[in-house]
């Protein structure tokens, strides 16, 4: 039985390619052990992978903070990293836009973005946040705060209901 409020995983440090792979492996193992009967594992794993991909792609410096925690009947996935202003602004814009969308609008925006053959400068497909919203709905938040060195601390949080 899982504690009704517990941290399943918390990582703080550099998000290297190797760490990303190890975190992905660990997340699948944690999901299987702790959430097997309470959620769609592939969806939850997918949300975490998209957030890690974004953090790695747009992290401008320093370490990343990542956690999965259970709050009552919900799973909260949170990631925080430093980014430059343009990427921080882009994150806020996409999340703000998704928050106001219905499921149908999210699906439509996803299809439009999928049909755009271009990848971004940093190799992104522009689909990550929309993919998350497709999987778990639009309970996504993003917060941005300036740091002293000119970078911006970006924190994204995704909340999804677990099955009883």
């Amino acid at each position, binding site marked *: 039985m899982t504690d009704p409020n517990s941290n399943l995983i918390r990582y703080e440090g550099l998000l290297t*390619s190797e760490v*990303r*792979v190890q975190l*992905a*492996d660990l997340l699948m193992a944690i999901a299987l052990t702790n959430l097997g009967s309470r959620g*769609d594992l*592939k*969806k939850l*794993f*997918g949300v975490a*992978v*998209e957030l890690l*991909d974004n953090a*790695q*792609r747009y992290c401008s410096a320093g370490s990343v903070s990542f956690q999965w925690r259970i709050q009552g009947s919900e799973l909260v996935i949170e990631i925080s990293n430093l980014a430059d202003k343009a990427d921080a602004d882009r994150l806020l814009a996409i999340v703000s836009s998704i928050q106001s969308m219905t499921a149908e609008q999210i699906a439509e925006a996803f*299809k439009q973005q*999928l*049909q755009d*053959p271009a*990848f971004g400068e940093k*190799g*992104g*497909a522009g*689909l*990550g946040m*929309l*993919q998350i919203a497709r*999987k778990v709905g639009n309970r996504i938040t993003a917060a941005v705060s300036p740091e002293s060195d000119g970078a911006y601390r970006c924190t994204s949080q995704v909340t999804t209901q677990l099955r009883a």
Partner: protein
Amino acid sequence: MHTLHIPATRTTPEVHFQPETGHCTLTGVSIPEHAQEFYQPVIQWLDTFLAYSRRPVTLRIALTYFNSSSLKALYILLGRARQAQLMGSTVRIIWVVEEDDEFMLESSAYFAELLGVKMDIEMLGEGGAGERRAV
């Protein structure tokens, strides 16, 4: 034309494209950091093969999971296959889905809708046995 074989890693699928049979398979997980870089030679190989060979192609995609940038790369790959179909080439696409995998089924539906591409869905049961249907 050479065989394209890229062994699987923890983040990329095994790629095995064989010119002598026209059998092309992608197998495993696809969560590379740079999907565009990974899939570029795969798309290029298929383009070249379709341009110079009249041999029918079977493209079998058996991925257990992929990230969104891989999804876009797969969209581009399947778009090329669709173009070839429209130009008269025989390109059969088999999309392998594990039982109850809504994500993979939904993805195939997106491809079918957006590209107009026909795919045979191969459903894998627990024992790995396949059952096929067309979309």
